[in-house]
């Protein structure tokens, strides 16, 4: 027997052993996979009675098709990373429910929302009036509302479906430490929430994670209360203030919710007016500023009941005890004060929606500072406020550069003001535009403007699916001549969705 033959014979039992081990491992893997999927399916079935085991095969096939249709390896790696994240989130949810089945709120959340995401940092969060149709899950519901996280390149990072149309998007100003309720141990985690308000009048608001869009809480309005579309955090991020309506007396209320106690309602103040809409926190961190729109709205029809007698006002409240500090009314009683933005110097930027006769020309963009007896309008060329079609949807302020952006979907334009001069720099045609927020100078595409000395601006969303960057710059020539002529350039990213009224920067 040669050396080689002896060696081969000695390898035979080893090969047979390896085959046996491989078979055993494969069988154990199959059994383990089936067991894990079976457990997942059991919990899934509790939430979705229509769920079937075929969904796993169908979903896998759809993902493979997506992978095959993709180009390059980087997107595939991102999808794999995304799949792993989704797996982790899914198990986290399943585990959470297993140990805490009596919390029906959590069961509702997973049944009502579907979240998909990419692993990218989020820069803005926006409401969506019409979500894109996923090729793998052709959901043809007419009311496919949602929320999306957007990155610095204006691409969608995550998207979460919502059962109702949403309105304000409120980002927690700083991350807060909260007990990790999903762990059996007494851990704590750093979390930054985004609150998504239902469209006025609504019975719910939702709390999502800014990083991945997962719904953490769905908060229902108290008996005889409706939410009125907007909210704001205290500057430390610990309390959430929400505009509400007393459905019996129709008096405006401000509900206060504890962010670190699962958004439990802890107090309530009067708003000192009817129809409170947007509210913001003063930089002194002690004062709430509230836009009382003045309109009584019937819930079912959204019909305005008191247009002739409405009495809008801007109210300053002590945020700790609800004491009324100051109240200012506009020159015309049908100038409904709806949207606000806060300048770092304490000036309140105000967007008006005029409810009077269509041909009456009233100022639609105002400012106010504590102590002023009246509002001060910004200026409009030839005093032509009808450019905005009596309707301002959002106001956003860049305090560092003293710029203000207002949007009007009905007027089909976004306008930027220079707050130094209080004059309009320019208005840009943007059909159906509404959401507005600051465009950080750190944006990766901010250097596309031709040789700007100073480049800054805003991001504006619209119902046609565009996220448009409006960049304000001062040309070098203008600067050298001692002038300060600003001009605005735009560039848009198109998405297959209709963005809703508001978006908010992180």
């Amino acid at each position: 027997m040669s050396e080689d033959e002896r060696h081969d014979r000695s390898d035979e039992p080893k090969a047979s052993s390896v085959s046996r081990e491989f078979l055993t491992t494969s069988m154990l893997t199959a059994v383990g996979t089936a067991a894990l999927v079976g457990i997942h399916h059991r919990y899934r079935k509790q939430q979705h009675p229509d769920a079937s085991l075929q969904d796993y095969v169908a979903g896998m096939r759809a993902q493979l098709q997506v992978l095959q249709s993709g180009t390059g390896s980087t997107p595939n790696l991102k999808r794999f990373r995304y799949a792993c994240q989704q797996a982790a989130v899914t198990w986290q949810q399943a585990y959470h429910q297993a140990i805490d089945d009596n919390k029906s709120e959590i069961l509702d959340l997973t049944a009502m929302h579907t979240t998909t995401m990419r692993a990218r940092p989020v820069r803005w969060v926006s409401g969506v009036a019409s979500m894109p149709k996923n090729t793998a899950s052709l959901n043809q519901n007419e009311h496919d509302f949602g929320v999306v996280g957007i990155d610095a390149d204006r691409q969608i990072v995550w998207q979460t479906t919502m059962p109702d149309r949403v309105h304000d998007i409120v980002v927690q100003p700083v991350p807060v430490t909260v007990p990790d309720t999903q762990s059996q141990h007494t851990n704590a985690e750093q979390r930054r929430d985004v609150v998504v308000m239902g469209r006025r009048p609504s019975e719910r608001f939702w709390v999502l994670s800014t990083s991945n869009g997962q719904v953490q809480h769905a908060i229902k309005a108290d008996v005889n209360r409706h939410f009125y579309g907007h909210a704001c955090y205290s500057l430390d991020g610990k309390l959430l203030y929400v505009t509400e309506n007393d459905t019996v007396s129709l008096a405006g209320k401000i509900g206060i919710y504890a962010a670190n106690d699962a958004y439990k309602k802890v107090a309530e103040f009067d708003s000192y007016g009817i129809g409170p809409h947007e509210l913001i926190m003063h930089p002194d961190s002690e004062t709430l500023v509230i836009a009382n729109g003045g309109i009584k709205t019937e819930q079912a029809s959204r019909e305005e009941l008191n247009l002739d007698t409405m009495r809008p006002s801007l109210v300053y409240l002590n945020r700790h005890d609800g004491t009324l500090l100051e109240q200012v009314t506009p020159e015309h009683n049908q100038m409904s004060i709806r949207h606000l933005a806060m300048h770092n110097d304490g000036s309140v930027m105000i967007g008006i929606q005029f409810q009077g006769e269509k041909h009456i020309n009233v100022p639609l963009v105002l400012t106010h500072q504590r102590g002023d007896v009246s509002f001060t309008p910004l200026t409009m060329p030839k005093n032509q406020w009808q450019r905005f079609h009596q309707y301002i949807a959002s106001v956003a302020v860049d305090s560092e550069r003293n710029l203000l952006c207002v949007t009007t979907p009905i007027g089909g334009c976004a306008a930027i003001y220079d707050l130094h001069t209080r004059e309009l720099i320019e208005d840009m045609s943007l059909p159906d535009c509404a959401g507005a927020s600051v465009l950080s100078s750190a944006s990766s595409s901010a250097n596309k403007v031709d040789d700007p000395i100073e480049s800054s601006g805003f991001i504006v969303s619209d119902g046609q699916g565009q996220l448009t960057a409006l960049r304000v710059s001062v040309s070098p020539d203008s600067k050298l001549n001692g002038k300060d002529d600003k001009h605005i350039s735009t560039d848009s990213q198109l998405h297959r969705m209709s963005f809703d009224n508001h978006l908010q920067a992180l």
Partner: protein
Amino acid sequence: MKINHALAMALSALSAGLLISCVKPADDNKSAEVDSQEVAQNNSTTDSSTESSKESTAQIVAVDISPQTEKTYLTHVADDIVIPAYADAAKQSDLLNELAQKHCQQAPVSGAELQALRAQWLVLAQAWSSAEMINFGPATASMSNLYINYYPDERGLVHSGVADLIAANPKLTPEQLAGESAIVQGVPGLEEALFANESLNAGQCAYVISASSALSTRLKDIEKNWQQNATELLAIDQTAESDRGLNQWINSLLSLVETMKSNAIDQPLGLTGKAKGHLPAATAGQSRAIINAKLDAINKAMTDPVLTAILNSNDESTVANNLSTALADTTTLLAQMPEDLSAANKDDQQALYDHLTTVTRLIKRELIPALGIRVGFNSTDGD
């Protein structure tokens, strides 16, 4: 623990994780059913063609429209739909002006001469109703369309405004009128002067001549603006990178149907809530003619051969056929109703509203997905 046990656990977790992460959302299993139930509940009067269209919704596949095809279509929209619509309205205003100058040489004007003026006003009002399908561009910038059609006039401002203006200035010129408030101008002002009086005196004649002349000037300005700026207004030169023009045009047509349904039918007739506002051409008692003109404009735009060819390029004619059928059904129903829609019975009024709901749904659920564009959020109902 043996190594193969550990390996099996790891592989099990990985494969199960992958399967679970990819699982198809369970909601999809019932979405089509839920949707069809919702439609059935909300629209009990839908006919069989609509039922079949609902079933076909799930199979809507966006047509692949090349930038050149889109550019060709948008150019066609500008040249053959939009500009002619404004040109026709301007022409009808000119004709009213000429007729008024002719008949007003000897005031008072009454009888057949007044009837001729009223008939021409109706042609003008219908021409403008067609042009209202374009809800963007120079006609709506800075609310200038209010100077052409102040509607709805919920407080009756036009009635008192026109009477007061004529009384204060019986020799009104077009230039003087152009500087007045929107409530005394355009189609409603002319309707007030022509239909609220049994005969026209010299002051009323001067008003009709001035108002038709001022209106004609406005309409020609809009037409000229479109001729000069159609490329920009419809983003015709941007079809390679954006579908903005197509999106805006189709959403504009959708907006006309929704606004007509809400402001011109539902609210004045109090179909879904408390009555509010008034029917179009209420003083003339010609609401049917105005609604008909709008429907006709929608019909022509939706069944336009170039658009139909785009929709049929997938060998799929269902979308165009469904829309055409729904619009024809609505027009047939409207033809059977009285000139003044407020005199129609409630069932017919409700049926008209329901038919327009069907048209709206078809545009939103079939036409817009088929064109690969998006329904804008309803900006008139925001906050």
